[in-house]
């Protein structure tokens, strides 16, 4: 370039060469990454359930009684939990909470949804419910009875049309969106009914996602995510993507994600849907174990299999709650007596 100085020419050519070198490096790395992901064959069977480690925690549950399980068969025989339970202290210590007190309170809560000018549905109707700390509450009901709406109300994802929802003594309706977001990151864990893992993130990143909004730094969150994966027997899945997991593995990953911020309350919507009977039992036992550390559970489901695990159970019908006797469904596990 006749009108550029020597230094400008050098700078220009250096930039051009560097640019193309960097572009080639990126392309090669991306191609290699894609190639390695393609060659990881998706596992169709649960692989993490083969580890059996003796623990000090009682894990024998006897499921008997007149209630039918989801398959309509006789309740299964007791079995030990086939999950590695040598979890680190932080995951197993009791969640700090005040003595007694209620985690969630529904005070005469009603929720309407206006579908159009003429049609309004009321999935939740004058619900009064107090859930104490450490409880394992199951709400049964058929599809469309308002169970998910109740869960969403507890999380502040929707506001009640009338009545008040309190979480740890705080009125959720009085909070701003930012306050609700902060509250969810600090106090809540979610287990959604639908596949809720972010497809673009690895399993480790998915688990540590809520920690982004909490007070952990990324290194701490990463370590905790790996600990949780180890606890669930899925250590080798840390760097795979959600599409490479089975339904059971996905559910367990979602459970792990719900624990990353050590929440006080876990809201679970059909946590065992799409699971076979064996995997369902594994997940239920896991949830119960977590509950024993002091985490409160509010689970909505249509599966009777969860009732024996509950401290209290309700039936939801046309938006209204009716308490049911859990003992009707079980020989109650010793820990729950």
């Amino acid at each position, binding site marked *: 370039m006749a*009108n550029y100085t020597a230094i400008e020419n050098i700078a220009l050519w250096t930039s051009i060469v560097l640019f193309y070198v960097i572009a080639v490096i990126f392309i090669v790395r991306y191609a290699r990454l894609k190639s390695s992901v393609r060659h990881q064959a998706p596992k169709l069977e649960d692989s993490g359930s083969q580890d059996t480690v003796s623990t000090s925690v009682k894990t024998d549950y006897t499921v008997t009684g007149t209630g039918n399980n989801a398959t309509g068969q006789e309740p299964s025989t007791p079995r030990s939990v086939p999950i590695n339970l040598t979890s680190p202290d932080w995951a197993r210590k009791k969640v700090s909470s005040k003595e007694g007190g209620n985690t969630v309170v529904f005070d005469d809560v009603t929720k309407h949804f206006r579908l159009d000018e003429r049609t309004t549905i009321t999935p939740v109707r004058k619900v009064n419910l107090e859930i104490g700390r450490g409880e394992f509450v199951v709400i049964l009901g058929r599809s469309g009875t308002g169970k998910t709406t109740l869960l969403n109300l507890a999380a502040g994802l929707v506001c009640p049309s009338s009545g008040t929802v309190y979480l740890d003594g705080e009125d959720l309706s009085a909070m701003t969106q930012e306050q609700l977001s902060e509250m969810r990151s600090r106090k809540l864990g979610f287990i959604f009914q639908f596949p809720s893992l972010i497809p673009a*993130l690895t399993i480790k990143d998915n688990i540590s996602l809520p920690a982004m909004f909490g007070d952990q730094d*990324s290194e701490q969150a990463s370590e905790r995510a790996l600990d949780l994966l180890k606890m669930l027997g899925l250590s080798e899945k840390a760097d795979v993507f959600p599409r490479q997991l089975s339904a059971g593995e996905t559910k367990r990953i979602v459970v792990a*994600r719900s624990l990353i911020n050590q929440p006080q309350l876990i809201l679970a919507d059909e946590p065992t849907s799409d699971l076979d009977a064996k995997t369902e039992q594994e997940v239920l036992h896991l949830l119960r174990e977590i509950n024993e550390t002091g985490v409160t559970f509010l689970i909505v489901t249509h599966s009777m299999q969860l009732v024996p695990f509950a401290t209290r159970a309700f039936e939801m019908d046309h938006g209204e709650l009716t308490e049911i006797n859990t003992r009707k469904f079980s020989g109650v596990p010793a820990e729950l007596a």
Partner: protein
Amino acid sequence: MKLLKLAIKNITGSGFRSMAIFLCVMGIAGFLLSTTLIIRGSQYSLTSAIERLGADIIVVPQGAEDKVESALLMGKPTNVWMPQENLAKIAAIPGVQVVSPQIYLGSMYGASCCAVSEMFMVAFDPKTDFTITPWLIKNLGRDLAKGESIGGTYVFVPEGDTGIKLYGYYLTLDGNLEATGTGIDQTMFLTIDTAEEMAKSSITTALEPLIIPQDSISTIMVKVAPGVDVHQVAIQILSDTTGMYPIESPNLFGAFRNQMNGLLWGFFALSIVIWIIAAMMMAVNFSMAANERKREMAVLRAVGASPGFIFRLVLTEAGILAVTGAIIGIAIASTGFFLFRNAIAASLKMPFLFPSFSSFAGLFGAGVGLALVTVALAALIPAIRISKQELAIAMRE
């Protein structure tokens, strides 16, 4: 994992969608830069040429304006003549500070010294010249002696030779002027004395003699006194003299500029249309992506993300795609233009000069900035919608 890292992972995780926006930005940024370079390159070339000439007014024989402009613009030799006595007439015009004559000559067909077959030669008077002499003083520290010359950027000494042979007369090439992208780049400058000596020796040494009419000059370079209105002086020249026409420097190449403006406005309008279409396509893409990711964003909100975080996440993803796409598009377009600038200028048949380094850096920055703004605007409404969506409803979808 922070916002930027999450945005990058989301981009790499949705390959097709991200690639569509990336390619769109890359294409539009490259295209806009190319058209801008053509427009700016032409303008820069003409400005450089006028600055190189250095005169406020160029007085040419009446009717020879187009020939002279064509010679200066395209480097095609021309022969125009007027009586030397016109020099004194112009010098007498009020407001004129300095006048200097120039003689326009052309080499024989098939000159070996240049990028073109016929080279344009301009002979100047070193005693009065103010166009070439300042360059000589700055770069050579002296005037040109007899037998010496300087050339435009495309004038060179043939390989194996020590000088340039024209009309059987050897000239040394003592320097090359900076590029202007016009015909000046293939013009040779020598003193009138050297030209006259060349003409004299060509009678016996050249196949065809070089003819310089007696007491004739081609053009007069005029410098106006400081503070004097150039246009007024030009009007006075026109009214007080006959057989001559003054061309003010800003109006130099006027006919060509008028023709070029039409073409350049066409480029500009096409660029705007393409930019608008690209922006709309990107807006549709972002809107579709937002629809597709409603549940994903609802999950993020449920695990603790605030509406502001979701908004920033969508815009960050858009921003990353915009910046990387623009940089790569501009880099590819610039590289192509830089490497093939001569071929492009030749095919465009218009003067073209690659802009200065700082000017180019400014274009680069403006291109990236425009891409960023465009993509941000395209992503804005989907970002607002998805950050304010009803979570319970989004989770059901």
